[in-house]
């Protein structure tokens, strides 16, 4: 608490932002916090591009006829939307921005284990994103983000090799980040920071990093093989060249299903931080929440075949994947229940990060449960490649990962920038995003069971009303995102100065000034207590006890 006072009284204190303002100091920085900011700028631009494509898709689908753009253009739009959002936004979003910024501070380290590798990761990522944008400028790719062969390798007339090179190169950024986090968490924890004192965000990042390091090489090789088949006509996947197209699907999903967990596990880590902070209570079942992240990471590697029930893979193989998919749902359920029960006997406050967290619980619960439909083999026959699947993964990827990213961004924004954003507008944005999101994607569940296939430029007339609802929702959702961008940018200049600990949270990142000094801490912290060690009431009366009263009084003093 006292650190907050110090920070506000000395506005000119040296922090990681004002230590050197030159462009060179940013481009050659080895500070994990600055690299996090560099990533934030890059992925925000990519999100903007991907989002514009999403809006164009919804514009086209307002009417049943394919009348806004040509078929080829539409196919390129959904492909570029998927490629950009997945490879250049979602995968790096929480790990590379907030993981980079917060993880070393949260474990009491001065930086990540390999700061130069960390900077290299951003450059490699930017190169990959540039290749992706190059493919776009050259006319765009029309294969779908899944690059299914033999369409991608032998039939598409678009710059597929450049696009897969972009994803290939960006994959190395992912591996660098994952490697860095694993080593950092193993070797650089502050004295006293045992594994079970780690904030659960760190556990989430650790599980994510395992997948990044173990899974990404497989997609790299797979995409390379597509490029080889396309460029050199060496048969790997195209049966006309002696290859096997279903082999591609196995290799692709071997990475791309775990990649779903690369996107959601960090979000789950964020959730644990938000729920604990805004309930002022230690996470219920800490060990279960921690281990469930590892369980998800391990199981994520053995469920890929649930994308292939109708591809012609063996029926018995399908059953194995179906039952394993049922298993992977359990650790997620465990997390949801533990978060909910954490609020029991807490002091719940509905600040904007918490609104995003509650929104996550709602949307991710629906997203997770609708996965059960798709894991059930027979039902998947009907739902596979329909809008039901589109709705399901957007509930997980947008309702889960992006809502968690926004929650995290609001939560740590004061720490990252030293500024507070206008809270009423932030609350409004959480509400708009929640409403807009549901209106966009809930009708798509219905469209899916009705049988509307995904990636359709035109569709039968009887499905127009549901598509209009979805497009209307998309505009609301987009205005929510724009609102967030506007007030966050506004706050950089006009926002109130942030105290060290605006949320009254535990955790090392809140014990250092906002923004933190270049070395994170003036003194290496020594950890003597568990994570989320909020005061608890032991007496059995309705009134808060003395410790809590004192805490409240202290808080009012600062407010």
């Amino acid at each position, binding site marked *: 608490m006292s650190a907050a006072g110090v920070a506000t009284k000395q506005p000119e204190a040296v922090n990681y932002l004002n230590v050197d303002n030159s462009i060179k100091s940013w481009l050659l920085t080895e500070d994990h916090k600055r690299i996090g900011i560099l990533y934030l700028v890059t992925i925000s631009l990519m999100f903007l591009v991907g989002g514009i494509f999403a809006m164009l898709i919804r514009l086209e689908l307002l009417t049943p006829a394919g009348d806004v753009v040509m*078929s080829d253009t539409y196919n390129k739009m959904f492909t570029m939307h998927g490629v950009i959002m997945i490879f250049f936004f979602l995968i790096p979003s929480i790990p590379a921005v907030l993981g980079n910024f917060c993880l070393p501070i949260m474990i009491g380290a001065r930086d990540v284990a390999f700061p130069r590798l960390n900077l290299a990761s951003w450059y490699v990522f930017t190169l990959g994103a540039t290749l992706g944008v190059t493919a776009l400028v050259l006319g765009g790719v029309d294969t779908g983000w899944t690059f299914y062969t033999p369409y991608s390798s032998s039939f598409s007339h678009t710059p597929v090799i450049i696009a897969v090179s972009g994803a290939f190169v960006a994959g190395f950024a992912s591996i660098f980040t994952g490697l860095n986090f694993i080593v950092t968490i193993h070797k650089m924890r502050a004295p006293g920071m045992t594994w079970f004192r780690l904030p659960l965000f760190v556990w989430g990042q650790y599980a994510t990093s395992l997948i990044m390091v173990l899974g990404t090489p497989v997609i790299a090789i797979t995409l390379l093989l597509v490029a080889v088949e396309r460029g050199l006509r060496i048969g790997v996947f195209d049966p006309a060249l002696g290859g096997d197209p279903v082999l591609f699907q196995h290799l692709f999903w071997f990475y791309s299903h775990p990649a779903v967990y690369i996107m959601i596990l960090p979000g789950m880590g964020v959730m644990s931080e938000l729920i604990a902070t805004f309930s002022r209570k230690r996470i219920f079942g800490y060990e279960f929440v921690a281990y469930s992240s590892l369980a998800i990471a391990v199981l994520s590697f053995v469920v890929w075949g649930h994308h292939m029930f109708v591809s012609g893979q063996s029926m018995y193989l399908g059953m194995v994947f179906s039952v394993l998919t049922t298993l992977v749902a359990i650790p997620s359920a465990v997390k949801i229940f533990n978060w909910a029960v954490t609020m029991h006997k807490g002091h719940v406050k509905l600040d904007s990060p918490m609104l995003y967290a509650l929104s996550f619980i709602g949307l991710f619960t629906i997203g997770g449960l609708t996965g059960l439909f798709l894991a059930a083999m027979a039902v998947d026959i009907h739902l596979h490649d329909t809008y039901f699947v589109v709705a399901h993964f957007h509930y997980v990827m947008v309702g889960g990962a992006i809502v968690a990213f926004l929650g995290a961004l609001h939560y740590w924004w004061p720490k990252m920038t030293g500024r507070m954003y206008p809270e009423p507008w932030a609350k409004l944005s959480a509400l708009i995003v929640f409403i807009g999101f549901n209106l966009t994607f809930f009708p798509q569940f219905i469209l899916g069971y009705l049988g509307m296939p995904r990636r359709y430029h035109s569709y039968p007339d009887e499905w127009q009303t549901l598509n209009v609802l979805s497009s209307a929702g998309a505009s609301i959702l987009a205005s929510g995102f724009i609102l967030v961008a506007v007030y966050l940018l506004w706050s950089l200049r006009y926002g109130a100065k942030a105290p060290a600990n605006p949320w009254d949270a535990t955790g090392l990142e809140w014990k250092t000034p906002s923004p933190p000094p270049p070395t994170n801490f003036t003194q290496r912290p020594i950890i003597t207590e568990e994570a989320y060690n909020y005061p608890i009431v032991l007496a059995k009366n309705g009134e808060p006890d003395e410790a809590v009263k004192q805490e409240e009084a202290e808080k009012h003093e600062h407010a």
Partner: protein
Amino acid sequence: MRLPFANIPIWPEGASKAAFEMDLLYLVIVGLTVFFCIIVFGLVIYFVAKYYAGSKADRSNPTFHNMPLELAWSLIPLALGLFVFGWAAKLFVEMQAPIQSENALNIYVVGKQWMWQMQHPTGQRENNELHIPVGRSVKLTLISQDVIHSFYVPAFRTKTDVVPGRYRTLWFEPTKVGKYHLFCAEFCGTKHAEMTGWVYVLSPEDYEKWLQDNRWGMGDEGVTVAQAGQALYEQLQCSSCHAPEQRIGPPLTGLYGSTRTLSDGRRVVADYDYLRQAILDPQAVTVSGHEPIMPPYRGQLTEQEVIQLIEFIKTLSAPEAPPVAEAEQSDDSGGNG
């Protein structure tokens, strides 16, 4: 089914034997979803309301661990999940190959950018339309000529990917006369969204009439698939090696469904996929005791022609019944269905 107060469809028509059970299973999972949502949302709303900061609620002696609770919310969802898995797997298996399949109608489907070509065993051909009788099992044998497509009829609640290079089968039994959407569900290029059509389920009488009216379908006049294959067989002069008296290529009589030993020692069943490869890429599957001298036909035959050749080879399995008689037989059985 539509919402009563708005013109919004909410439920697709079901017109196959599998549709009822799948809808039931779907509704059960919807029920489970709603159940868990109520629990989770209920807990969240209740706790937020009760333990909102500053409220007078009793917060003494909070707990942070509860093993029985953890087990309960792991094992109960697991049990329910496994129940769903089991039911869905059972239905999946049933949909793969129905028990009553003797009287099935075999139709061949070739997917290509961007159309569906159907061949009825009796020779009728149609594009992007499929006419079938109600109440009889239909077996589709599907292959793609280029990229991966997916044959999807929502009203039948079924689909299968249609892959180049290998045959797929799809079984269903239409239960309701009507006209239903056919879609390509796997993205296949520019006109993916236009690779659609209609499935017409007809009463047995109407189906019989349709067969008669389309006796001379598209292309060859009044020729069954096997007869078209025989014509190709002669045109390509396959018999100059494969006729039994030539003793150059392996004889084709009785070939379909038999087990063969290849020159590399593998033992394979001469099924659709094997025969296709033996025609298009014969040197990869040379039969033991023969020289690898047959020219590959890859790129020289359309998938429809390959199917015709295989159908012809199938008729050679029963030497006592000449191909024409066989074709008439299947035509008759069509009438009975």
